[in-house]
């Protein structure tokens, strides 16, 4: 039985790595080559069915769907990476401060966190974009603010146990400043849970960004993202189903890959929860 689930675990990790690898390869390939110009309008070949010359067909402006999906992969992934980096950096910093200093600082930060968490993430991001204006930068900022509280909570709870360890006490006793102890000894040890969280967060952000684009407040056209491709495909659903199917499959494959990889990483850091 134990061997069974090890093989199952590895299969999941391999499938996850494979899907994420394909995504990265597609992005890398898209940097140097796409079959057509993703933005080139060709009104002679609008809503073309998938064929040998256009594998995934063309959209209502005759643009090649495969090329657009490749560029969309890059834009969606970049936004997700930037968001995760901003949210994790800020969240980890505040989380270490809250968990290590405890007391008043901790209570204040946690109350704010609870209040921010009371807003559904999507709606908070929507409202922030309404205030900040619709641009790529405000999407990253809005999503970072929406996801920051989850990072803060995870890091804080990790710090609560880390601060009781001997090496932290040793650092304090040997006269290191509080700041030095936090940065040098506490922060690095929060890494495992942060890596686990960052992986699954990447998936959520890809999903949120595509939802924002789908609602029409995401990355402004003509730049393609999977979300705005789906949003634009809706009126043509009846006679050009491929327009809806392709970007959706891209999102689903990316999320599946990232989630499987995330599970594998979590099991690696937390063997007790193996193969859940």
């Amino acid at each position: 039985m134990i061997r069974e689930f090890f093989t199952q675990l590895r299969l999941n990790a391999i499938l996850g790595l494979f899907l994420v690898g394909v995504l990265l390869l597609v992005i890398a390939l898209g940097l140097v080559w796409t079959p057509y110009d993703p933005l080139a309008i060709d009104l002679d070949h609008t809503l073309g069915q998938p064929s040998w010359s256009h594998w995934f067909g063309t959209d209502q402006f005759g643009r090649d769907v495969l090329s657009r999906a490749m560029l969309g992969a890059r834009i969606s992934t970049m936004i997700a990476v930037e968001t995760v980096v901003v949210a994790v950096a800020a969240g980890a910093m505040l989380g270490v401060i809250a968990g290590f200093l405890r007391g008043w600082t901790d209570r204040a930060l946690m109350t704010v966190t609870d209040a921010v968490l009371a807003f559904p993430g999507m709606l908070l991001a929507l409202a922030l974009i309404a205030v900040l204006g619709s641009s790529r930068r405000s999407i990253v900022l809005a999503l970072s603010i929406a996801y920051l509280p989850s990072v803060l909570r995870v890091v804080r709870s990790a710090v609560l146990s880390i601060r009781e360890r001997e090496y932290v006490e040793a650092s304090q006793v040997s006269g290191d400043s509080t700041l030095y102890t936090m940065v040098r000894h506490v922060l690095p040890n929060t890494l495992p849970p942060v890596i686990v969280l960052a992986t699954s967060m990447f998936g959520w952000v890809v999903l949120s960004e595509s939802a924002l684009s789908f609602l029409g407040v995401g990355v402004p056209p003509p730049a393609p993202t999977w979300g705005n491709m789906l949003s634009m495909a809706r009126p043509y659903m009846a006679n050009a189903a491929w327009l809806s199917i392709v970007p959706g499959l891209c999102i689903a494959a990316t999320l599946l890959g990232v989630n499987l990889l995330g599970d594998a990483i979590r099991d690696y850091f937390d063997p007790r929860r193996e193969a859940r």
Partner: protein
Amino acid sequence: MLAYTFKRLLLTLPTLLLVALIVFFMIRLIPGDPAQVLLGEGADQASLAALRESLGLDKSLPRQFLTWAGNALQGDLGRSIVSDEPVIALIIDRFQLTAVVVLVAVALATIIAVTAGLIAAWRRDSGIDVAVVGTASLVMAIPSFWLGLILLLVFGLKLGWLPVVGYVPFSESASEAVFYLVLPILTLTIIESGMLTRMMRSSAIDVLQLEYVTHARAKGLAERTVLARHVFPNAFAPTLTLVGLTLGHLLGGIAVTETVFTLPGLGRLMVDSILARDYPVVQGCLLFTAVIYVLVNLIVDLLYPFFDPRVTAQ
């Protein structure tokens, strides 16, 4: 129990206060005169002056906040720039539809999750377990709006069983309303059951390894009884928290699902208001959803001791 309830109630107060502060200051972040922002471009001088007066813009920020919060407590969230209707009336009107869809979908998803999760945990590593976990993982990777589109494509366009766009309010025809709500509810149920199933399975696995389960089996109880009477109540507590979180967030608006199925719910109201720069409505929706979320979680926390009596002791 009473002390627990009281403490839990008290804890929501600072959260609610901060929620109100965030909503209040978010609108103040928009550059320009708040009265102009709240009334829109076309406002005349007289109504601008009137609003400035009622918002107390010449007074200090804390005073302005108190005025605003006081009005909000009395249910006065201002008027929509677009339709000039009271914001609270708009919200309540749209919320009913969202609430029906969300409550039915979350209830169905919970039933599916509890059943599938328990069976998968009980027959761990069997074919059923692998199938349940695999399906749940797959479902978690599917964007709800895409699933909605595909369901529309199959059941609406290809098979022609269900309507593709539009909505008939319950007040006009309940049977027709249900017809329009089948696909949105199905979409949400499928999407939300993924994470809940994994949660239920995971906590059921933990509970199944506990000694009192072995004891119950040793007493000769049927497996069905062991699962229903001993495993389910204890394994359900963490899932209940997740149900609460899900419910709280979804009630705030299933903007994406409502967009796919062109349903006039709360989420759609918020998105339309953002696109139309109808800030009083945006502000009202945000406040409303956050308050709903806090209340739902309060209720879940108050229900928690019934499943796990240790909670009150802490």
